[in-house]
């Protein structure tokens, strides 16, 4: 049996809507923005309307159930329910949209911050393209000293960083919920694993306020750590971050991998 056209149209719309949600929010884990989804659904509805009404016969079939409900006395109960429920739904929609909320107004952020090639850190201009972690070579040269430095880095981390970035380095520290954007999850393969140590050094040392102009307006609450930590402490923390998560820092010496940052 063929489904009534009105049902077909409704199923297509619901299907497309759920499709967007399932594909984006669950399968791809990249949530589809509500503003965009609204517009997408608007145009999909227009498209469905177009396909279902371009000739008289289809249009008649489409509106027949609606017409019957409104005009046929048999469906009086259904009609009255619909006529009550729809205004109520619209009213609820209006109410919930105009209800004042505590959510901050939407802000537009333009670009993913690309690092500058040089940055001023501890009053000196350093070249981020060539900068290296001064302790990294101990990893092969003297593993014992290296482990010691990692331990020192861990201490610095626990004292300063874990409140936001979490004691498991997963971005879920006690304060994380209050922050927006959320603290970075270092366990994620898409974060420090894709970055050079010099990039981390720059981000840690200059914090949110040190983000380049093209990334503005950016409201990252990361402190400017060069005002609290020494240069050595920062490098040691970086050692710890990679050591604990088991990632290796990216280096330009190797071939660039395709899934780049």
């Amino acid at each position, binding site marked *: 049996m063929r489904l009534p056209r009105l049902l077909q149209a409704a199923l297509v719309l619901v299907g497309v809507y759920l499709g967007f949600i399932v594909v984006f929010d669950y399968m791809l884990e990249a949530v589809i923005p509500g503003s965009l989804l609204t517009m997408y659904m608007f145009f999909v509805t227009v498209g469905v309307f177009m396909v279902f009404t371009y000739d008289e016969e289809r249009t008649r079939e489409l509106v027949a159930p609606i017409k019957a409900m409104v005009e046929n006395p048999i469906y009086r109960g259904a009609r009255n329910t619909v006529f009550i429920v729809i205004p109520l739904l619209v009213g609820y929609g209006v109410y919930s949209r105009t209800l004042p909320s505590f959510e901050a107004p939407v802000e537009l952020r333009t670009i993913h911050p*690309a690092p*500058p*090639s*040089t940055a001023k850190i501890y009053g000196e201009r350093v070249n981020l393209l060539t900068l290296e972690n001064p302790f990294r070579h101990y990893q092969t040269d003297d593993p014992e000293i290296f482990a010691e430095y990692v331990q020192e880095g861990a201490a610095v981390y626990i004292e300063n960083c874990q409140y936001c970035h979490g004691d498991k380095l997963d971005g879920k520290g006690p304060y994380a919920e209050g922050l927006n954007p959320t603290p970075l999850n270092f366990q994620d393969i898409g974060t420090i694993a894709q970055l050079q140590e010099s990039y981390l050094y720059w981000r840690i040392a200059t914090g949110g306020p040190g983000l380049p102009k*093209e990334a503005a307006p950016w409201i990252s609450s990361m402190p400017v750590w060069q005002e609290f930590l020494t240069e050595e402490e920062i490098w040691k923390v970086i050692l710890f971050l990679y050591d604990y998560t088991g990632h290796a820092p990216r280096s330009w010496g190797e071939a660039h991998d395709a899934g780049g940052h």
Partner: protein
Amino acid sequence: MRQFLSVIAFMLIVIGSFSAYSNLGIPQIEPAPPPTEEVIDLGSMDMGQFLALGDRIFNGKGTCTLCHNSLGRAPMLDQIGSNAQARLDDARYAGSATDIEGYLRESLTDPSAYVVAGFGKAGTNDTESPMPGTESGSIALSGPELAAVLAFLQDNGGLEVTVEIPTDMGDEATDENAAEPGEPRAPFTSFQDLSDEFACEACHTIGEEAGDLGPNLSAIGATRDRDYIRRALLDPNAEIAEGFEEGMMPDDLGTQLYATELELLIDHLSQLK
């Protein structure tokens, strides 16, 4: 009539929804107001503030970051520290600069003097730059603003800052302080007119007029030569005549006088014997 009204209603709804979407559906961004001349107080500025001024101009009024950004429209300027010398040494370099500061200044005022390979206007084989000159046109940086940008570029590129903070606003600025902007006054052709205009005799005695804040000039030509007079006019505090205070005579006559007027003054004074 029913058809007519429903058509009207349809059209109004369509226009209304376009308007509603433009107002509510997209974020409303308040565009920046037209740029205004930066008020610069050069006298009280240290190098840090001067660099900050350069930074502001670089990111704002100068509109530099429209192109000098990571999107590859123009060379990145935070790398000039390592690049500038190489550009100067390039065989293609045909400009007139001899040092890095000169090179940078030249690339701001005459962008086509040297075009980095790959960044020229399409079809010109890198002989013509798409960048507008920054001294004129829509950007129109003043002398001090240009110097501030230069200083910022040097600092930002990891170079030693060799640009010095200029001491005056440059000619355009003093012109603007004059009564009629853009309307240069006609040069004076007689000593008396000049003396009246600049009120020399308020302080100096010249012939009959008597002022006593400055030295008597009635016979200045007998004791001083032309070069001394010239220096005294342009840089009055370089040497102070005995018995008089420093800093009394205005030191900006050089910017207020036409060259012919200066010569006229020197001629006249050196003949007073």
